[in-house]
């Protein structure tokens, strides 16, 4: 098979033209006859598909918590000239899913949001999401820089580090974030080596 042909075959099979692949018929013939078909997305095991469906049906965040996550997320990754904000990339929904998928995050997340609301209530008489933008930024400034934060804000720093990570992952693994970052792979291609101008920039060559 020529490489170009194999690329063509891939495109076809990824579109679901399974019958074109001679391996498929071999596969079918050795499947036990009594296996009942289950609706499972490609690449998933049955228990994974069932587990995902259950997680998607459950809810973790209260409406207030979700609002706080959304406001905080957009402070961490706002829209700029190049791309949109964390919430525009669907980050709050991703964080909601992760809380259910990996329950060890639930207490640090829920407790951290409550810590944040408590600090804001003491200082401004309002929960974080209801504070003025300037008030929100005042608090964020006190927990976003681990090296400069006051000792009494240490739990807030830990919470913000976690939140920064989740927001960054959620944003930069989204379609919008991947485009922003400039990742241009995940597509059939021919690797020919580092482009010549880049080799030159780093004073490297393939001849050494």
């Amino acid at each position, binding site marked *: 098979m020529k490489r170009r042909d194999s690329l063509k*075959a891939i495109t076809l099979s990824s579109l679901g033209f399974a019958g074109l692949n001679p391996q498929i018929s071999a596969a079918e013939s050795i499947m036990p006859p009594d296996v009942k078909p289950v609706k499972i997305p490609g690449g998933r095991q049955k228990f994974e598909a069932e587990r995902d469906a259950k997680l998607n049906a459950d809810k973790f965040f209260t409406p207030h918590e979700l609002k706080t996550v959304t406001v905080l997320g957009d402070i961490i990754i706002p829209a700029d000239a190049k791309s949109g904000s964390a919430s525009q990339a669907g980050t709050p929904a991703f964080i909601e899913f992760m809380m259910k998928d*990996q329950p060890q995050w639930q207490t640090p997340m829920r407790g951290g949001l409550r810590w944040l609301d408590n600090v804001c209530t003491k200082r401004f008489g309002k929960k974080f999401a209801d504070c003025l933008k300037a008030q929100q930024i005042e608090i964020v400034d006190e927990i976003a820089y681990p090296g400069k934060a006051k000792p009494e804000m240490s739990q807030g720093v830990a919470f913000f580090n976690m939140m920064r990570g989740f927001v960054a992952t959620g944003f930069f693994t989204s379609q919008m974030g991947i485009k922003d970052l400039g990742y241009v792979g995940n597509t059939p291609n021919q690797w020919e080596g580092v482009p010549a101008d880049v080799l030159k920039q780093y004073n490297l060559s393939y001849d050494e």
Partner: protein
Amino acid sequence: MDVPQIKKAAKVYDVVIVGSGAGGGMAAYQLSKAGATVCLLEAGGYFDPADPKYINQLKWAYESPRRGAGTTRAFGDFDAAWGGWEIEGEPYSAVKGTEFHWFRSRMLGGRTNHWGRISLRMGPDDFKRKSLTGIGEDWPLGYEDYAPYYDKVDDLIGVFGSKEGLRDAPDGRFLPPPKPRLHELMIKKAGKSIGVPVIPSRLSILTKPIHDRGGCFYCAQCGRACQAYADFSSSSVLCIPAVKTGRVTLINGAMAREVITDAKTGLATGVSYVDVPTMTEQSVMGKVVVLAASTCETARLLLNSKSARFQNGLANSSGVVGKYLNDSTGASRGAFIPALMDRKRYNEDGVGGAHVYSPWWLDNKKLDFPRGYHIEYGGGMGMPMYGFGFGMEGRNSIVPGRDGKPKAAGGYGADLKDDFRRFYGANIGMAGRGEPVPLESNYCEIDPNTVDKYGIPTLRFNYKWGEAEIKQAKHMQDTFEEIIHAMGGIALGKKPGPETNYGLEAPGKIIHEIGTARMGNDPKNSVLNKYSQAHDVKNLFVVDAAAFPSQGDKNVTWTILANSWRTSDYIIDQVKQKNI
């Protein structure tokens, strides 16, 4: 054995093989091509990398609700391998104060669905450790016995690499290697300056199409299984072609319970198994039984195959079954390379894995530990996946901002967003994989108190690293920092020290375990002869890595394939001579 509730199938196969990974796949392929009727038992389900219902290749991070996190699959949501270190209903244990993590893939192709396609030959000295150093054990065979089989495996399966003429890393019949990526060129240059060789990797990935399989299209996702069959996995390259001969009966969902033997002759007559979909007891009969269930599963099967004649378990008159269990050592370190900040973007996915590696380069006679290691490298502008961006607060104060002024660690907002762009593709990682000293005191045995969901007694491990492995890990850490500094990089995190055994991974974590039914010339201290044939049962063979007395620092898949082929040839020869 005479258990009334077991329904006996009438057919007697020429060969019954347990396990469809590298060893079992190769035996099924060779024996069926030679004309034998084969029954191939696989505990897990069917898998074909080209069937859309199994495909994860070319999916985007956002097509996973967890963005690729390893919640249900240890190596990420898109990894091809089903199973992992923990499987529901299939427990194992360890003696207090010891540790072993047992990775299992329950599916066609077994653990060839999870590996880096690193396809190294053992070197001549790797077979002669006891003679050369007084420590460990010699193989009953040498490199010269395996060389023709390594050659045949190269031709059948395909491996890229470069001719280097290194004694400890013998050359093969290589396809052309891919050119190094940018960070790999930097590693190569740094290595040269400090005397660490950095050469093209040797991976079983088709940089040129062979045998009707497609060529690599450079998506870096071999770990997800390749729909073009452009990398080696036992399902696509061995098992499915073997089934197509028409002589192989593949039974999926067949969890082997015992090897059945004849009380009078002591010969193996078949295998009893639990049919997983129906949870019924079944058995298949064969003239020859070949075990390839994986190092620990094969030991478990032998130890569980007790009878009046084999009270110690099958093929275990030596008492060696389960002993000398050994996994590769492993330690790693990450680094940030300031020169790689603000990189120009282009597609550098390449093949699935590093394009370069460092074979062992030093003389252990001049070191305080007896065995070597190789180094594998990571890095580049890969697809952002779950975990991206975590830990930026430990990173973005290391270098000045765009304005040249120092920055406070952490932060938020447009400035932070820009940092993620600036730091993208500027990290590298390196991992050592070393040879351990096989010890009798590292072993698995049958747990007297526990059974799995099939009612099969489970394994209990007893494994501790020795001084040799800990000192080797210390040397790895020193080398990693040397390479990082030579690159002008900044090592990340605290350097692992004695409190963590220098970052030495727990036994089983590298998934290179071997040795539980080792071959040897003396039936008193080995389980198999030099043809991987049980000393005690002449029609019983082991073709997975349980048979190996040692592993070098060479990931063992290529040697499993070569040994299984060699054993298959021997079986064919012995059947022709009517010896079995």
